[in-house]
């Protein structure tokens, strides 16, 4: 029997010819990631291990993105722990404020996570890199500490659900809508412990940015990783950036899947996930009238250049509704600059948006747009749990950038089609 792409990558890194779902293995990792929330704890644990040096200073990435530029004294202290560790151990991929970005936008952009890699990160959305055909998964701080010392991590080889997306996408439907729809279908634990492999003709036509968005939210279905078979789109993305070797793996035709789920995309509308779970996805036509106080466009899910382009195409020549605060957060400095050069930032500011330096900020209720009691936001982020963006009695609705931008214009959750029509 053949192997899936996930099994192949894990086998290679475990020094094995073959392995099967369910096996416990030790695998070498190509990159270990941490941020200003998780790394300080990992550093504390690393110090308890008693080794003097990290396994490889070029295979550790430390990104201060969650509460940076630091929002208060405590978060500044945490960031300092990470900064000093990075200096002490000559960590190559440490990114200071002004040069950083949201970790999951930044690492692929710099070509330091690549197809065929095994990546672990002390951040649950590490699964984003599966969009490049890498095995990438989130772990905790202690796992990160152990991997910084040994260069290895233990895994249970996951079973895989194969998702096959067929048909043609409707206008304004993209990666976010497909993944919200999929999570709506299988539920927030529908792929618990498993790998989600995204394939099909509708996927082949998706941009690299849209693929990142989908892989990013595999965790919201409980998955260990989400993965795409690398192709010409991947090659195009990594060729210019790669800072190291990479390898394209593909699943064998006779690979074993736990389940195959076929999805006809042609009927899928832009999606909105209602509070307080990402699985509460509905087509925009079934949303009803939901007024919003705030709109956030950004995060590791939808803070990439394509997302900003989509948002700007809707906001061009329009203004944000009087009762709405629109906050736009480019994912990295490079994305910010590109948006500036393309004139997107000007469109946002003219529309009445606040544009911020890259940060996770409001996505996890950190800073830069916290909700008060009873307030409601539509956000291109990935989680709408109770209290995620602020007060426990606030609400977050998840959508793609098109719905978010359209909603900023009208003040209630709106189909992009309606706004664009109005303006035409």
């Amino acid at each position, binding site marked *: 029997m053949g192997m899936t792409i996930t099994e192949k990558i894990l086998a290679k890194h475990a020094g094995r010819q073959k392995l099967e779902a369910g096996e416990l293995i030790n695998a070498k990792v190509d990159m270990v990631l941490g941020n200003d929330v998780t790394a300080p*704890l990992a550093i504390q644990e690393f110090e308890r291990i008693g080794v003097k040096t990290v396994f490889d200073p070029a295979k550790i990435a430390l990104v201060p993105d969650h509460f940076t530029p630091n929002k208060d004294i405590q978060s500044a202290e945490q960031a300092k722990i990470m900064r000093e560790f990075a200096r002490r151990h000559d960590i190559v991929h440490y990114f200071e404020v002004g040069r950083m970005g949201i970790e999951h936008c930044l690492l692929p952009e710099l070509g330091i996570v690549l197809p065929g890699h095994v990546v672990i990160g002390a951040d649950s959305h590490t699964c984003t890199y599966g969009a490049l055909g890498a095995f990438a998964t*989130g772990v*905790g701080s202690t796992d990160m500490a152990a991997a910084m010392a040994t260069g290895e991590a233990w895994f249970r080889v996951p079973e895989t659900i194969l998702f096959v997306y067929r048909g043609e996408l409707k206008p304004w439907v993209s990666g976010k809508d497909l993944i919200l729809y999929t999570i709506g279908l299988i539920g927030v*634990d529908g792929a*618990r412990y498993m790998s989600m492999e995204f394939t099909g003709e509708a996927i082949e036509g998706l941009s690299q940015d849209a693929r990142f968005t989908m892989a990013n939210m595999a965790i919201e279905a409980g998955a*260990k990783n989400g993965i795409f078979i690398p192709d010409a789109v991947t090659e195009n993305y990594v060729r210019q950036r790669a800072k190291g070797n990479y390898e394209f793996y593909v699943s064998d035709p006779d690979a074993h899947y736990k389940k195959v789920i076929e999805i006809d995309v042609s009927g899928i509308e832009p999606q909105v996930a209602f509070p307080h779970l990402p699985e509460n996805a509905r087509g925009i036509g079934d949303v009803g009238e939901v007024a919003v106080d705030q709109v956030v466009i950004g995060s590791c899910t939808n803070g990439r250049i394509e997302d900003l382009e989509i948002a700007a195409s809707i906001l061009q020549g329009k203004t944000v509704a009087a009762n709405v605060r629109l906050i736009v957060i480019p994912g990295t400095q490079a994305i910010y600059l590109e948006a500036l050069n393309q004139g997107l930032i000007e469109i946002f500011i003219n529309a009445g948006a606040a544009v911020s330096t890259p940060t996770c900020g409001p996505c996890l209720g950190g800073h830069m747009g916290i909700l008060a009691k009873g307030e409601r936001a539509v956000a291109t982020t990935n*989680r709408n749990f*109770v209290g995620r963006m602020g007060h426990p009695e606030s609400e977050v609705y998840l959508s793609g950038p098109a719905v978010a931008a359209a909603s900023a214009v009208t003040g209630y959750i709106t189909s992009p089609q309606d706004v664009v029509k109005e303006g035409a």
Partner: protein
Amino acid sequence: MNVFQGKTWVFGDDIDTDAIIPARYLTTQDPKILAAHCMEDAEPDFPKKVQPGDIIVGGKNFGCGSSREHAPIAISGAGVSLVIAESFARIFFRNAINIGLPIVECPQAVSGCENGHTLQVDLAAGVVKNLTLNESYEAVAFPDFMQEIIQAGGLIGFVKRQTGGEK
């Protein structure tokens, strides 16, 4: 040694890590400070009323969401001896084992369990007893490899042995 007994705090399905410890408190890793806010958005009384040895009972997918190890740390910092759930989200599962917070998957023990019941859990034998209901259930056993990590007191102890950091 491996037997835990305590009163239960019952929560529903999909208890996420933002409910266990909201991100607004993630600017510290001090177990005491984290414990003071543990579960407060789901059950405001919890941090005030939880007693050492109490047991958290969750539904399916307990601990879903972020990778923050602050979640199991807050729970163990609050004095909770053990978490029982129908199922655990995978990163939480990993983190709990890695930091040495005992967790048990036992759907039968969860259904029918109410706040304030007394549970007795024998980890080695894999048996959960509800002393209030006078019922006994079998728990899902951990693979040997994970037992080794638990025996080493968590992943750091385990790696210390491997790297020879502990003489």
